[in-house]
């Protein structure tokens, strides 16, 4: 595929705007890579080359960044990336059970994607949701207190096409009644 088609003109415009918001344009590179991943689902090499050109950076410098920062996917991933926290609070509360259960239910190992392209399973360090241990992220959303029942619910909701599950939890929503 010719590289021009990878980054849409609109995306290129957004990236140029971002570059202008910093005293030094290169500061915008992480944000630019996030935008690319949002649009393409991962950061393919031709896209790295094209963004390098926009920033006037050698392509290998962008590649180095993409591998330094864990969040960028260097290969295609499933529609839902399940990122399971393995750090201390989650470890103490059974993150290994979460991993075992998901591996069994999805019939894949950590680091793999299901054949239908729906789920990828990856490990993560602390996700800053330690009081909800064991926890995971479904793409960008948090899912906490992952008992087997809650994991089963998650998988059945996502398989059933409920792509808004788990619900976002942002501040302008009313606080939980208690």
């Amino acid at each position: 595929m010719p590289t021009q088609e990878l980054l849409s003109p609109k995306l290129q415009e957004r990236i140029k705007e971002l570059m202008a918001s910093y005293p030094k344009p290169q500061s915008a590179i992480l944000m630019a890579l996030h935008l690319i991943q949002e649009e393409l689902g991962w950061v393919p090499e031709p896209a790295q080359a094209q963004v390098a050109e926009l920033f006037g950076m050698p392509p290998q410098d962008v590649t180095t960044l993409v591998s330094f920062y864990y969040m960028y996917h260097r290969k295609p991933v499933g529609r839902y990336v399940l990122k399971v926290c393995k750090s201390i609070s989650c470890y103490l509360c059974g993150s290994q059970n979460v991993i075992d259960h998901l591996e069994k239910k999805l019939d894949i190992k950590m680091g793999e994607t299901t054949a239908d392209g729906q789920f990828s399973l990856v490990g993560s360090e602390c996700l800053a949701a330690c009081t909800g241990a064991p926890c995971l992220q479904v793409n960008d959303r948090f899912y906490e207190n992952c008992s087997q029942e809650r994991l089963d619910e998650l998988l059945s909701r996502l398989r059933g096409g409920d792509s808004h599950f788990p619900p976002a939890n942002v501040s302008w929503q009313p606080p939980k009644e208690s």
Partner: protein
Amino acid sequence: MPHPQEKRILFGWRDIKDIGSLKVYREKGGYDAWLKLLKEKQPAEVIELTKASGLRGRGGAGFPTGMKWSFVPNNLGKPKYLCVNCDESEPGTCKDREIVEHIPHQLLEGIGIACYAVGIQKAFIYIRGEMYEGYLSLKKAIEEAYAAGLFGKKIGGSDFECDIVLHRGAGAYICGEESALLSSLEGERGFPRLKPPFPAVSGLYACPTVINNVETLATLPPIFRMGVEEYAKLGTDKSKGTRMVSLSGHVNNPSNFEIELGKVNFKQLIEDFGGGMRHGKKCKAIIPGGASAPWLTMEQHGEVTLDFEAIAAARSMAGSGAIVVMDEDTCAVGAALNLVEFFHEESCGKCSPCREGTQWLTQILHRIEHGQGKMEDLKLLDEICESMLGKTFCPLGDSATVPVSSSMRYFRDEYEHHIKEKCCKVGPGAKKTAGV
């Protein structure tokens, strides 16, 4: 609902419906403290007042905030910057996320106060990439604040101007270290930098820079609302005010709590706030300040109060305020291995004592944990820790030795048991050789 024994200053407004919106925040009187300072006080007075409040950094090191600001020179003829550290990735810590998701305007007001005090016209919020909801919450809050004339030029009718740029990280614990954060914000890999020069003189883009934690900044508006003298009455002589603690692990009610410094001990925290230990088990060990803090034990340290000095006197540190609780069934070797693996995974690889040291520590703990350790390994662990301490480029390397040295300090018998009996001394792992 706040816990009845909490002392809510920072979180005073946390549970107000829609407090994340500018409308409700303003109705409550939000931004008034800052706008009043703009009208009535000189920047230097704001620095003095912040010093008088006794506020100390909540990011890990506990450095006095007002003093940090006073180190920024005014005469370099360069722009000055504020970098807000919202990289929160220290295992066990999850209070900054609650702040940005729920009270984003309080953080923005705190940023305004800091910028006015130091004469800064541009602030960058470095938010870790995984905190997408927090990012959206802040993005919306910033848009609202700009639309209301609270950022930009001529703020509140004064001559003061200030801009905010929201910046997402992309996953790397090391970027929470302040100099690595600067490298990352400049579009490089997150490698720590040599100090001196210190960021106060030469930080972002080689300009004078203040780096503050989210909680530190979000505490400023309530401090100025209630008055610095009132705030300084809270806490102890050297640890003033309140702070957030993230209580996690084997307790019934893991949660973020705001406590008055020096007024609650670990026993009370676990029993009264945490609802006691899960399944009625006994508490074995406590990590009192995030993964980088040396372990304590309930037996010896239950009465230690939560403040910077008391925890330091117990040979640990208050760090990020994350308190991780382990019950009696936890294998000390397994938990130490988990922590060391974290540091190994997150070592940026720039210097060899840390890059290789974390690798060795992981390998040795791994073989002890899996019944293949030798007695000499214990000495080897000591030696590796020794060879890393104080010899790494940034504090991460020191931190990596902490779980090993502190767990060996209190639970050496478990290491020995693992080596001799090839199984855990406690918990489910102990059953493996039952009857042998």
